């Protein structure tokens, strides 16, 4: 008996995208987008009770379910945020009716493709889902009418396209590495199937570099800051904060498949992670624009997460997986503050968001106990640079600066989704409930 819930969760955004592509009115489009995202979150909230449900081509494990919940939550808050941003962009003529329709349809298609990539058990299906996600992400990024946004969308297509082709080569090589050759390669059985080790390592190196590009890992990271800073603001939240998580899950699955002989691919992961962390931290020091700052902070964090995955083992994976969740929530919160009216309430919310981003690198302290000696210095330098650069950019709203007090109902309604995300960050950092700890442990034990 097939469980219909996971299929509905994946199909709903695609169906909404099809409807949104046909609906001409941007006002109706806004409500369909927000309604669909809210329904998706409600359905995704039921998924933890359907773990390991039998669905062909899909695998509903603990990390997959967690990413589905995270994606649907941020997609929901972003869709409500775009209720304010789309009319504002239409008023300033940076969007027109056709581009608003493109944005809404591409946004839902992107969410659907991310969910399909996360829940897919088949390597080829994951690849195909990420290819759809890249195409939709280019549509979301380039929706706004500006040369910089069009260039950012082209960069995204090019660099992620190169990554996709490298990942496809790695996927084919993974078929060759299986002993005996199997008809399909599944994520759920990748660990248990015997492999020819040198061939597996070669395939994994290609897969890590290819999917790493889609996660914003150096050297093919250049698309991420541009897409986050130049694209349409609500779209850049989905692209920058959510799309990178699906390839990170792929890296986690591959690292698990390499046990107990991680060899060269684990070293490649740690090296790429360190380069990304240090590069992100250095760029952060020179950054002045808030959206670009959030993107570079995210890049540095992704580097730290990749190092954690490369180190392997339950403790290091826990120290990488938890910040990944927190990063998506904190980065979405900072980016959703973009374009808010300059009131004290909004300024404090923005400050809280950046503070949340600044404390995340401290999770690397958990890695230091497990890391090799040669990793300690670059890891420590990267973490210190990232945290200090973010703290230096902390916009503290001083009482001497005359800003309106704010606090009217419409402003509170606009800020409520951001507060929800920041409250979740606070809860997970300071007082993580027991069942959530068990949940993260189950993910880390893979």
């Amino acid at each position, binding site marked *: 008996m097939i469980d219909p819930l996971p299929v509905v969760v994946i199909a709903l955004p695609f169906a909404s995208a099809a409807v949104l592509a046909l609906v001409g009115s941007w006002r109706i489009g806004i409500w369909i987008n927000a309604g669909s995202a809210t329904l998706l979150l409600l359905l995704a909230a039921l998924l933890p009770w359907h773990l390991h449900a039998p669905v062909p081509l899909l695998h509903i494990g603990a990390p997959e379910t967690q990413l589905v919940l995270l994606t649907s939550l941020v997609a929901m808050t972003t869709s409500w945020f775009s209720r304010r941003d789309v009319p504002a962009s239409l008023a300033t003529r940076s969007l027109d009716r056709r581009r608003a329709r493109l944005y809404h349809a591409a946004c839902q298609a992107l969410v659907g493709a991310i969910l399909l990539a996360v829940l897919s058990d088949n390597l*080829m299906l994951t690849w195909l889902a990420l*290819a759809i996600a890249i195409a939709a992400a280019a549509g979301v990024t380039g929706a706004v009418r500006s040369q910089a946004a069009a260039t950012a969308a082209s960069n995204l297509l*090019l660099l992620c*396209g190169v990554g996709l*082709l490298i990942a496809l080569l790695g996927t*084919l090589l993974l*078929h*060759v590495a299986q002993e005996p050759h199997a008809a399909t390669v599944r994520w759920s059985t990748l660990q248990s199937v015997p492999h020819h080790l*040198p061939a597996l390592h*070669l395939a994994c190196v290609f897969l890590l570099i290819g999917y790493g590009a889609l996660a914003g890992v150096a050297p093919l990271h250049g698309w991420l800051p541009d897409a986050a800073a130049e694209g349409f603001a609500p779209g850049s939240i989905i692209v920058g904060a959510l799309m990178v998580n699906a390839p990170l899950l792929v890296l986690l699955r591959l690292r698990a498949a390499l046990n107990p002989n991680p060899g060269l691919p684990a070293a490649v992961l740690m090296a790429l992670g360190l380069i990304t962390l240090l590069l992100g931290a250095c760029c952060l020091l020179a950054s002045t624009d808030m959206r670009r700052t959030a993107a570079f902070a995210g890049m540095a964090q992704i580097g730290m997460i990749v190092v954690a995955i490369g180190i392997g083992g339950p403790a290091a994976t826990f120290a990488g997986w938890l910040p990944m969740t927190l990063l998506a929530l904190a980065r979405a919160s900072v980016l959703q503050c973009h374009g808010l009216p300059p009131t004290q309430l909004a300024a404090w919310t923005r400050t809280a968001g950046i503070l949340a981003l600044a404390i995340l690198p401290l999770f690397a302290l958990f890695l230091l106990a497990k890391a090799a000696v040669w990793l300690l210095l670059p890891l420590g330098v990267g973490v210190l640079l990232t945290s200090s650069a973010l703290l230096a950019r902390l916009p503290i709203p001083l009482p001497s600066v005359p800003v309106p007090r704010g606090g009217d109902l419409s402003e509170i309604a606009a800020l409520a989704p951001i507060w929800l995300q920041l409250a979740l960050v606070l809860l997970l950092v300071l007082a993580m409930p027991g069942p959530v700890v068990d949940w993260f442990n189950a993910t880390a034990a893979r």
Partner: protein
Amino acid sequence: MTGAAALAAALALALSIALLCARRIGTAAIICAIQALLSAAALAALRWQPAATALVAFALNGIALPLALLRVVHRPAMSPVIATRNGAVGFWLAVLMLSTLVVAAFTQARPSPASDSLVLGSSIVLLGLLLVAQRSHPLAPVLGLLSSQNGLLLVAGATPDLPLSARLVVILPLVPGLILANAWLRQ
């Protein structure tokens, strides 16, 4: 691997080198089309099933995309000459390094009945990506990725028991098609 498949794959690799030397975008598109024909011929010689997939791969990679590329090239704003981004010495050193890496890596990897095709295909993929990095023309990425797609066809041909769904994914030039569509729309 049959002699005919090995010959077609080796010629396709030689065309990758020729592609790196091509100065005009029209010439490069024709080289890509011939390379797609050779890759499809290698697949047919490797007895890829169903045989029609080799034909579809050639129709898409060898006819449809190069023709679309030529249509974009003929627009007035597009320069017909491909400029090199870095110096020639660094470029050929990179080619040499890539070839050495591929041979060294695959001699370590698992020997299979069609491992020649695997090595040749992977070399074509990497040389195609090198073209993307080395050339500054707006359509150079399409050419490089199209050449890489031809290499992937050879790798897929050498992969035993590849399911039909995976074969369909490999024969569709999804990534070069997306980049070309983007270049078309931006113009």
